[in-house]
């Protein structure tokens, strides 16, 4: 297998891990953002939290594995991205810790104050994590202040400009929508009706953000559409994206929430593919001088490592998928509280 092909395969596999993470953790982040607005009593809160109870931890593993795989396959990209996003990443880590412990500790003490505290912490950390993930994506898309030897010359304030923040709002609204559809599938009765009332609102917010970010990207990040110009067949991605977006209200109207959830997952997939099309063949474009850009070629590992890792992936991924399916199957259906719930 040629070095070029191995590199391309790993670019795709890294993408698969990131897409897996955003689709899966996307809905539990969304549930975290929504829960103060839809759940009215303690039982409802517990139902909402237990809808993701057995799953959120496994969802987060996709991010961890993405990090490990990026480290191994494209060490320069890993080192550059994480040292450039120093503060933002530490904040994201704080949010992920906050979510984990909020879920774990909330039900451990029977005091309303204790529970309220963890509910707030769960909401805020889910919200901030979603925004930060989008802001990071927006910065990578727009390019960063990379100097010679991949050294970042900017600061946190350079990362919080209008465009990345817009992308942050886009991901947040998308996760909230994705989480709402998931909750709709997992709940029943009054709680479900309250969730339903939010889905359409969230859809319009997301659709508006989608249009705004599309226009902003065309105006502000001209290089994002270069690959689309060079390879017109890639237009299939934005078209599929638009269709998936429109399919969400259609599927909900047809009374098929599973189909709607599939559609919102496809929206995430298509947006991630658009992102990949926009940056390829680079990881992080330097706004100072194109010569300082982190590319697939200068970031990749040796052919031997890419090959070893491919063997690891070929052995490991079918195992991962098979028990992921088993776990989701065991916990299928409407969420119920039992002796093991949070």
């Amino acid at each position, binding site marked *: 297998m040629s070095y070029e092909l191995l590199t391309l395969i790993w670019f795709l596999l890294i993408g698969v891990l990131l897409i897996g993470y955003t689709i899966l953790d996307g809905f539990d982040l969304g549930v975290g953002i929504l829960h103060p607005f839809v759940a009215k009593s303690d039982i409802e809160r517990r139902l909402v939290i237990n809808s993701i109870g057995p799953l959120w931890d496994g969802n987060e593993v996709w991010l961890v594995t993405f990090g*490990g795989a990026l480290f191994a396959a494209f060490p320069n990209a890993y080192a550059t991205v994480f040292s450039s996003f120093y503060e933002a990443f530490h904040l994201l880590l704080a949010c992920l810790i906050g979510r984990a412990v909020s879920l774990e500790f909330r039900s451990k003490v029977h005091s309303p104050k204790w529970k309220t505290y963890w509910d707030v912490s769960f909401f805020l950390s889910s919200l901030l994590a979603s925004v930060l993930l989008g802001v990071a994506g927006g910065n990578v898309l727009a390019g960063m202040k990379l100097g010679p030897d991949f050294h970042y010359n900017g600061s946190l304030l350079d990362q919080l400009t209008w465009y990345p923040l817009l992308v942050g709002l886009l991901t947040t609204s998308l996760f909230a929508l994705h989480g709402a559809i998931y909750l709709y599938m997992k709940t029943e009765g009054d709680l479900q009706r309250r969730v339903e009332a939010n889905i359409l609102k969230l859809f319009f917010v997301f659709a508006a953000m989608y249009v705004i970010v599309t226009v902003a990207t065309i105006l502000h990040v001209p290089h994002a559409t270069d690959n689309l110009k060079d390879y017109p067949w890639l237009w299939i991605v934005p078209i599929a994206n638009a269709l998936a977006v429109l399919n969400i209200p259609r599927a909900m109207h047809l009374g098929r929430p599973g189909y709607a959830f599939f559609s919102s997952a496809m929206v995430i997939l298509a947006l991630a593919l658009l992102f990949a099309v926009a940056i390829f063949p680079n990881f992080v474009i330097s706004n100072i001088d194109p010569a300082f850009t982190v590319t697939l070629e200068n970031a990749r590992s040796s052919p031997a490592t890419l090959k070893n890792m491919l063997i690891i992936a070929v052995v490991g991924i079918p195992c991962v998928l098979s028990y992921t399916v088993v776990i989701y199957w065991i916990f299928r259906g409407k969420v119920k509280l039992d002796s093991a719930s949070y």
Partner: protein
Amino acid sequence: MDVELLSRLQFAGTIMFHYLFPPLSIGLGLQLFLCELAFNWTKNPVWESAARFWTRVFAVNFALGVATGIVMEFEFGTNWAAYSRFVGDVFGSALAAEGIFAFFLESGFLAVLVFGWDRVGPRFHLFSTAMVFLGSVFSAVWIVVANSWQQTPAGYEIVWNEIQGKQVPRAEVTDFWAMVFNPSSVDRLTHTLMGAFVLGAFFVASVSAYYLLKNRHRDFAKKCLAISLPSALLFSFLSAITGHDSAQKLVETQPAKLAAMEAHFHSSDEPTGLTLFGWPDAQQEEIYFDVKVPRLLSFMVYNDLETPVPALDQIPADERPPVWIPFQMFHLMVGLGTAMLALAALAVFLRYKGSLESWRWVLWGLVFSPVAAMVANQAGWITAEVGRQPWIVYPSVQGGVEMMGLRTSDGLSESVVASQVVSSIIMFGIIYSLLFAIWIFVLNAKIKHGPDSVEEMQRLKAEHRDESMRESIGHSGRSFGGSMMEDAGE
């Protein structure tokens, strides 16, 4: 303060805090599996209530291990970017393998372990427990492999690549299995795992001994002691053996670390003695208040009473590790290990004689033993990590060729400044202090509450069975038992 010191402090702090949890998860996972195995074997419901109790403790601990572990993975990129560029080809693949082979397995089956009691049969539940335990062991395998490669690198070469017109060196894998089975990985892995098993066993013994002292949950406590005490003895013994093997390897692979652990400053032609206690001073190259056993170190390292062990003066001055910390931490670990071995042996003997309960100080010793095990685990890692300074990747010889190492000071992120590291230290300091307090508080609450009695457990199970039956006939979300309705009124 400079970025290097700050980054080292940050890494040391976050990893020491993280390392409170994984060894306990691994050790407790084994004890939990044994309890459940006993339940599947005997069908005695006391074992089920024990397994359910330890699952709850396990889950809290596991969540903190995962939450603090994510930090570790990304810190290589945020704080040690130059190091990441240098070793990504090697170290990254071990980390990726951990994600694929360990984390997915653990987190997937953890869901069944914690939430699946009422959803899957006892056999599948036992299988899930085994998978979670296996996953945590795999995780240890890959992490210790990655760490050991830095200590005793193998299966790689240094390649100079042209990046942006400059020649930049990095380590590239030439032989994956030689990298995995580098000279220290097996010894260090077995010792690390034994340390975790010791901690888990003493943790279970501690809670059980506490209940016996307080005369509560006696059935549960006796059953758990029957498993945990023999485990504690066995694994303490195996810890000593594997530790000895690890230390013997050092004389070839990392003589500077061995000399630092023993505060062995001056070479001589005489056989080397073993220092039991002392206060080393690296400036004066002296050790004060020391108690020494002649010839013992020669014997322990070479299995003979004659061969002298190399000292720090054979290492160039700028490649010597600090001495005081590795010396004291190593001696602390060995001292605690010996004490735990003795305590476990005594407790097993007394239990066999049937008089454990009348020896209250032994029970109290067991109550505090997990602290000793935790400290010993930490001290072992500190010895290993401080003892390899100033190297982040040790220089080594591959096929007769001397390979460059990487100094810790050369591994830092180039674009990160001191104020950034300080702010992250403050943030993690606050978050971790809070977490530690809550962890102790919740653990204490769980232990105070204790396992559900068999009757209570069966009543709860029956209630939920009824409920799910009622719901499956068509009641919607609101049909919960009385006690839960009261909860809702809060």
